[in-house]
Every structure is written in structure tokens, then in C-alpha cells.
């Protein structure tokens, strides 16, 4: 054997051999760094491409074109039942007054189409809120029709033949006049955040789907968190290790990989057909998503329990705590951050899930905003799917806007997860 530092067989000192290899080692390190960096850059590029395309398509949906009209709240029209009065007539009259030279039924109909059919709801709301306005004339900003909105936002090409356009030459001319007289204005689209779904894009909103998602996720959370954590604690801490628990473990892992639509079929067969629960209801959606989320939560919770150092368990048992006390007082607090992370990941998956909900009827066209767990409802991703499927140009930007809302919810949930972890994760 060589003495340290002495010449080896080849006349080289060992340290020279070591140093000679360093060049190769450094090169390998640099190469690895470059691989890692390029992976990160690539994924960031994809992510920002996705975000930019969604935001650039969707941001305009947060604004809606409004038309200023002098509405005369005519006593003759507003006699009788105020709820069912012909508010459309008020809008038409104001428009005709604005363009007195428009004659002919066809032109008049085209002119009236500039304003959204939803305008009459706005007027009704005004009248019902304050009856003293009957008989007066007021300046009112009313939502424009979606085609006008698209034209104002520049989404329509004007240089194609009239027959290939959604708006006639005359309508475009009227829009220009209105714009010139400063009677057109893009304003913040409140409707988008306060309304349910609608066939008319300018009247369609995200609130119905958001509330549906909210109720569905509440059901999912309330069921899957306690059940998942309890199952994980039992399997990890109390269950004997035998072939039965092995079988259960294998099955839980398999369940996590089952395509989600299968859970939808199961929900259809069990909850709707067997138990007779209502269709399209957040309650059933929540039950189905619970089935889907449970494996995720159980697996994450078991991993969290496993990662609690055995020395803590020994300490607790060594002082004479029962197994229950050991788990509740010492293991669970340490495993909680991991369990919460798993739960939030499961919830985020559930929030973005569409397929199983289609099976239980949550894909229905629902205008009303759900007010409870058994009201018919849809959820955000299904709403996105429905809008993406709609032919109107105005739904394109609403689809992207709805995706932005969904992403905002996901980011908010992750923030909550981080905050919860911070709260529980008192690393000492």
C-alpha cells in the first residue's frame, strides 16, 4: 500500500489522479445544471404561453358595452302589473327617437336588436325599486347586444361581405353614430360576476357555476377530509399488517388511478338510480367527487403519518401514553401539514373535475343561481365546457374569463393551503 501522498505505481500521487478527474466532474455538474435550467425554462415558457393566451383572450370579457338611452317611463306602458309590463317597448321607443329617420319594419327590428334583450330586466328592476320614476324621462345606460359588444371591441371584421357578417351595414352605421355621439361606453361587466348562465352572452354570468362549485366542494371537503384522515390513521397506526390490510392498501392505490368518469357512472348508478337523490345537485356532485378524492387524501395522509419520526412515537409510548394519546397528541399535529396539503391537492382536483359530473346531470343549462345543496347546479369547469361549445363569438372571451376565474380560485385555495401549513407547521 502507498503511504499517503507518496507516488503511486504510475509515478502519480493519488491527489493528482483525484484532481485530474475534477475537470470531468465539474463538466458533469455543469451539464446537469443546464438540463435542469432548460427544463424549468421550458415549463415556464409553456405556462406563460398558456396564461398569456387565456388572459389576452379573456380580459375583454370583464368589460361590456353599454348604450346610453333617454328612457321615458311611460305611464301608459307601465300601467297594470309592473312585473310583466312591456319594458322592451320603452327601449324601442327611445331608440326610434334617437334615429327618427329609420322607417320600415325590418330596419326598426334591426335597430332594436342593438340593445340586449336583458335591458328590459334592468328597467324592470329600476321601476320596482323606485316607482316614482314612472312618468319621468331618465338617461339610462343599458347593455348592448353581444354583437354590438363584439363590434365595439373590434372582434368583428368589417371588410367582408354583408351576408357574412352578424351585423348589417346599417347596424354598423348606427353603432358608429352612437359611438360618435358618445352614447357607447365600455363599462365593468358586473353581470358576469352576478348572473347565472344565459343563452345571451351579455346576460351570462359565472356566479351560478361558482356557487355550484362552492356547494359541491363543501360537500366534498366535509366528507372526504374526516373520512380520509380517519382511514389513513386507522390503516397506518392501528390496523394489523396482514393480507387484508395489504389488499386494502393495493386497492386504495388503484382507486387513485381509476379514470374519473367511472366514479361518475358509479354515482349515477348508486346515488341517482338506487338512492333516488336529485339530478344535477351539488350534493350528489360532492358525493361523487368524495369518492374520487378519498384515495388522494388517504395516500397523502398515510405518507404524512409515516414521515413522523419513530423517536416521537417511542417518546410518547415510553412515558405511558396510550396509542390513542400518542396519535392524537403527538403524531397527528406533526402529520397535519402533510394531510392538509394532500387535502388541498385533492380539492383542487375536484374543483377542476368535469367528467364524473357530466354523468350525474350537472351539465344541464341552469339559469338560476343555486341556493342550496339540492338545487340544480353546474360547476365552473362544466360551465367553461358549455361556453366553449357555444357558437356566439362573445362566449369565446367569456370562456377564457371563466378559466381565469377558475384559476383564481385554484390560486386562492393554494394560498389557503400554504397559510394553513404555516399555521400548523411549527417546526421546532
Amino acid at each position, binding site marked *: 500500500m502507498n503511504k499517503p501522498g507518496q507516488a503511486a505505481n504510475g509515478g502519480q500521487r493519488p491527489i493528482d489522479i483525484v484532481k485530474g478527474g475534477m475537470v470531468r466532474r465539474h463538466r458533469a455538474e455543469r451539464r446537469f445544471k443546464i438540463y435542469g435550467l432548460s427544463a424549468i425554462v421550458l415549463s415556464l415558457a409553456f405556462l406563460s404561453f398558456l396564461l398569456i393566451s387565456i388572459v389576452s383572450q379573456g380580459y375583454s370579457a370583464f368589460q361590456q358595452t353599454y348604450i346610453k338611452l333617454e328612457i321615458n317611463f311611460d305611464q301608459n306602458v307601465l300601467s297594470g302589473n309592473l312585473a310583466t309590463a312591456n319594458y322592451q317597448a320603452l327601449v324601442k321607443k327611445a331608440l326610434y327617437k334617437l334615429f327618427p329617420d329609420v322607417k320600415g319594419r325590418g330596419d326598426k327590428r334591426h335597430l332594436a336588436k342593438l340593445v340586449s334583450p336583458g335591458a328590459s330586466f334592468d328597467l324592470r328592476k329600476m321601476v320596482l325599486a323606485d316607482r316614482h320614476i314612472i312618468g319621468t324621462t331618465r338617461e339610462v345606460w343599458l347593455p348592448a347586444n353581444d354583437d354590438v359588444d363584439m363590434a365595439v371591441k373590434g372582434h368583428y371584421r368589417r371588410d367582408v361581405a354583408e351576408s357574412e357578417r352578424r351585423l348589417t351595414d346599417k347596424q354598423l352605421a348606427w353603432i358608429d353614430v352612437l359611438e360618435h355621439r358618445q352614447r357607447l361606453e365600455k363599462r365593468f361587466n358586473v353581470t358576469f360576476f352576478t348572473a347565472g348562465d344565459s343563452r345571451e352572452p351579455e346576460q351570462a354570468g359565472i356566479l351560478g357555476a361558482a356557487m355550484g362549485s362552492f356547494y359541491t366542494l363543501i360537500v366534498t371537503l366535509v366528507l372526504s377530509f374526516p373520512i380520509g384522515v380517519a382511514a389513513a390513521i386507522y390503516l397506518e397506526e392501528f390496523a394489523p*399488517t396482514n393480507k387484508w390490510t395489504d389488499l386494502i392498501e393495493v386497492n386504495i392505490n388503484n382507486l387513485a388511478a381509476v379514470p374519473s368518469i367511472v366514479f361518475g357512472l358509479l354515482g349515477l348508478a348508486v346515488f341517482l338510480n338506487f338512492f333516488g337523490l336529485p339530478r344535477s345537485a351539488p350534493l350528489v356532485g360532492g358525493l361523487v367527487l368524495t369518492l374520487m378524492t378519498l384515495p388522494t387524501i388517504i395516500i397523502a395522509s398515510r405518507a404524512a403519518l409515516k414521515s413522523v419520526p419513530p*423517536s416521537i412515537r*417511542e*417518546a410518547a409510548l415510553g412515558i405511558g*401514553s*396510550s396509542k390513542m*394519546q400518542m396519535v392524537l397528541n403527538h403524531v397527528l399535529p406533526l402529520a397535519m401539514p402533510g394531510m392538509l396539503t394532500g387535502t388541498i391537492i385533492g380539492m383542487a382536483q375536484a374543483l377542476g373535475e368535469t367528467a364524473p359530473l357530466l354523468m350525474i346531470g350537472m351539465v344541464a343549462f341552469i339559469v338560476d343561481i343555486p341556493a342550496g345543496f339540492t338545487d340544480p347546479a353546474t360547476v365552473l369547469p362544466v360551465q367553461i365546457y358549455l361556453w366553449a361549445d357555444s357558437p356566439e363569438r362573445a362566449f369565446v372571451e367569456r370562456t377564457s374569463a371563466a378559466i381565469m376565474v377558475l384559476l383564481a380560485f385554484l390560486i386562492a385555495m393554494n394560498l389557503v393551503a400554504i397559510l394553513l401549513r404555516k399555521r400548523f407547521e411549527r417546526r421546532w
Partner: protein
Amino acid sequence: METNNSGVEPEPTEDGAPEAAPALKNGRLVSREDRRTVGIPTVDNPRMRTEHVDVYYNYGEKHAIKDVTLDLARNEVLAMIGPSGCGKSTYLRCLNRMNDTIDGCQVSGKITLDGEDIYAPRVDVSPLRAQIGMVFQKPNPFPKSIWENVAYGPRIHGLATNRSEQDEVVETSLKRAGLWEEVKDHLQDPGTGLSGGQQQRLCIARTIAVSPEVILMDEPCSALDPISTAVIEDLINELKEHYSIAIVTHSMQQASRVSQRTAYFHLGDLIEVGPTEQVFTTPLHQLTEDYITGRFG
């Protein structure tokens, strides 16, 4: 269970006089091949008595403790030495039934505390472990405050039910463990923020807070610096006034500093037991002599 010790192992007799070991007869050491216990493993009126205990791991695959008979006297410190993997920890963990928590670990034989069989079917391990406390090799305070570390045991056992009782037991336990002066002003700080030696004294305080009668220590100083070790050795010398202590140690110096009797284990066999000074100066078994002279281990 093999019983190859019929002729040599000193049976506990009425007057406590064991059969003479063969080594004493011809003045030579017992040969390495003879795996029967040399010396007197029993004492009068023991606190804990272990009789013919065998321990298997992995459902009988690994025979870790082989027919060990050993007593722990009242107010004594019994040191257990031996090469790594000889079963010292395994033996120690039998005494408070910590081996129950290991899947596939089987213990046979009889272990009594004050004459009561601790493996009897009716025995509840929680109070048993309060009675027989344990300090582990690696300091393992709970990731909670210093106060909570000490108060937890008395609280779950109902020994200190209100805050003032708990404050009191925290103070007396920390004082006994020699930690009070260092931590009294920041009892709410995390126990895991202390130094290694302080953490181990905190664990000792946590153990004595539930007023055990026996304390088991598994290499309590192996992760500590010499100064912390000296502090804990002083502590052990004081604690022996109130408790019976069984301590596993790698350091023969430590064994001779703190213990009255020493047991030498080798590959699961209890090879030799005797007064500490005798074991280290005039061992009777060749294996013991090999170990203390540093021939292996």
C-alpha cells in the same frame, strides 16, 4: 428453549448463595465456548427480576436474547455492556414492554416488578411504562415547549390535574434533572431548541415527572459531549437514591463511574454478571476479558 445452563447458572436459593462458578475452582477463565452465565445474576428482594427470558425478532427468525436471567436491585445502578448488536437494547426494552410495539417481536420467560408478572394478560402497559420510565439513546423531546414536555406525562396519568400542580411538577422534575437553572426563564421555548445534553436532561426530567420506580437508560450519553455526559452521570448518581436504574452503555469508564453491578452480554447471551469493580478488574469469563481489554467490540 434450550437450557444448557443447568450445571453452572446459579439458581436463586433461599439464602441467596449461588453455586460456585467453575472459574473460581481452578483459577482459570471460563472458555469462550461456554455460553453459560458466570457470576451471580440474582439479588435479594429485587425490584425487577428476569427469569429465562428469550426474545425473537421477525416471528422467530432472529433469536436476539437467549435465556437471560438477571435481577435489578433496589436503589442500584446496573450497567449493561457488550459489543454492538449483542441485545442490550432488546433486553432493556423487555423491561417496560417497549418490544410490544415492534411487529414480529416475541418475548418468552418471566419478568416481574416487585413480584408481579409484567407480561400477565391483565397488565395494562400505560401505567406500567409510567412505573418503569425509559430514556432513549437519541434525545427525543416532543416538538413542544419545555414546559409541555415535562407536564405531558403527569397530565395524562392524572398526577397533576391543574395548572399550578403541573407548574410544580415541572419545576421539581427539571430541578432534579439539573436543568431548571438553565431553562426556568424560557419554559415556553421549544424543547427541541435546546442543546443535545440539555435535551437529554429534559428527557430525563420528562421521565421522572411521572414518578417512576425504575428508570431504563439506553446509551443516554452516546450522542453527547464529555461535559454533558459528566452532568448526566452526576445526575444518575443522585437519582439512584430514589430509583432503580438499568443503563446500557458503550463506555466502560462510564459503567465503572455510575454502576454498582455490571452485566456483560455477547450475541444474545448474558455472559457475566458481577460487582462492577470485579467485572472490570478480574473478569471470570474469557469473553468478558476479551471485551474489557479491547480485543473486540
